[in-house]
């Protein structure tokens, strides 16, 4: 996937998520944690559900369907019923422009 310009995300506060539904096959969620941007595919690895319907607490997103939890910085799954990680993406914050990589 080539780079995608996400525009100006300076209004995305710490702990907040924003969904870009048209990117990739599931959409991509961008969030800010302690000032830094992180991005992951909006898809739980356990079942086909939107993680963006869940809540980001600290660096952990909980899938609202069965409670699978993931570290959004690494994609690593943290508890049952997830048995595999989610896909994370590289996102660069370039003064006024956020750019999504692969």
């Amino acid at each position, binding site marked *: 996937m080539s780079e995608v310009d996400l525009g100006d995300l300076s209004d995305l506060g710490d702990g907040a998520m924003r969904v870009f539904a048209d990117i990739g096959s599931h959409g991509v969620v961008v969030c800010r944690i302690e000032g830094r941007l992180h991005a992951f595919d909006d898809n739980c690895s*356990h079942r086909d559900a939107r993680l963006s*319907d*869940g*809540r980001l*607490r*600290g*660096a*952990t997103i*909980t899938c*609202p*369907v*069965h*409670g699978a*939890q993931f570290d959004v910085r690494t994609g690593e799954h943290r*508890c*049952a*019923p997830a048995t595999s990680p989610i896909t994370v993406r590289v996102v660069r914050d370039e003064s006024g422009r956020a750019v999504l990589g692969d």
Partner: protein
Amino acid sequence: MANGGANHENGSARAPGPSLYQQLLADPTRPPWPLLVEAPAYLGDEDIAYSVYTSEERFRAEFDHMWSKTWQWACHVDHIPETGDYYVYDVGPHSALIVRGENGAINAYYNACMHRGTQLRPPGTCGFANQLKCPFHGWTWSLDGELIEVPDRWDFPHVGDDTHRLPRLPVEVFSGFVWVNFDPEAESLSSYAGVLVDHFTEFGFEDRYIETHVRKKLPCNWKAAIEAFLEAYHVRETHASGQLGDEVTTQYDVFPPNVSRFIHTIALDSPQRPRPRTEEEIFANLLRGVPAEARPRLPDGMRARDAWAKIVQRDMSSRYGHDFTNLSESITLDSIEYFLFPNAFFFPGLALPMVYRFRPDADDIDVSWFDLLILRPRPAQGEAPPPPEVIELDVDDSYTVATGLGPLGRVYDQDTSNMKAQTRGFRSSVKRGQTLGNYQEVRARHLQQRVRDHLRAGGFTDDPS
């Protein structure tokens, strides 16, 4: 009571020197009234059989008859601030799913699907859900525990919305924490907590947030872990290389049935020291971590304790945006430790503001889990920070990796350093039980008696050998 050799048959002997009560009255600022309550207790002097720590049968009986019937704090209110937030609290086989419902309500459910028993959410998780759906067959409940979906409901005419709603367990909020009791018939927490309710009105725990949270695996039975923290008798050998310090006047109180306490002063000389220290010496010792050029002078005629209290008050006032300069020296500095049976500790002091919780491992009688929290005053303006990630420490990890503990890290390393050896000694000892000091170790005796009370009520009796 200042004597060294009263009638030893009723536990009235005390260390030589002034009592803590007399020390508190000598402070310039009167402490809150609970600290001036004395409640000594003599609970006998029989040895405590080591089998209470080593009997597997008793370990299981504790889960069946004690952990299932007592109030324990499951999480802090800040762990479940918004509707849909949940927290899973586990002790042994028992698991409670605590959920923030609509309109701020807090619900606690037995964490098991009403279909075939699967836990709805995994142990020890803190998460979010719009509804509670079981991952096995998809049976679903609302946040209020109402049954809202049973796939192929036609196959379950014997399932009623009422019979298969999620069963609640008693849950209450007290002092900023969410408490649960696995006994659906439990008395209220305020009845269970006795004097704590009145005492805690003076301390404002609900105005504190969690700044640091460490959870360590300990190599001993949960009762031995708790007992290591119930007395200050160990301070001279475990913490101070044999030096007697301000802990010798520690006051030990028992408030039946479920509360005990110790209070020990900070920055007063030990009345048992062969050569008394001057106030300058005490003050210099308190400031030993500060570079010499940055150390303030002890004002003429001022006690080290009073000067140190002012320094701590000014520092904490500026750090946390409050004015603490009217607090008593005791609340500012002292180690004031309340215990609520079976496993919770609360320290209302300003400089020593900890909360503890101890839990048995679910499977290993010689392992326990110790949650250590540092609470700080909520800011006067704006929101407190969200609860921090738990720092998980294994048996041989040092507390000093948790920088939020500051110099206390080393102290907790010392406190936990005797546990393996004591645990081995429970089995290698030819003497069959532990001997406790009548006054200084009475709180350990109180803990053991309360456990025994619950076991007996459940029909389990200790083997007399």
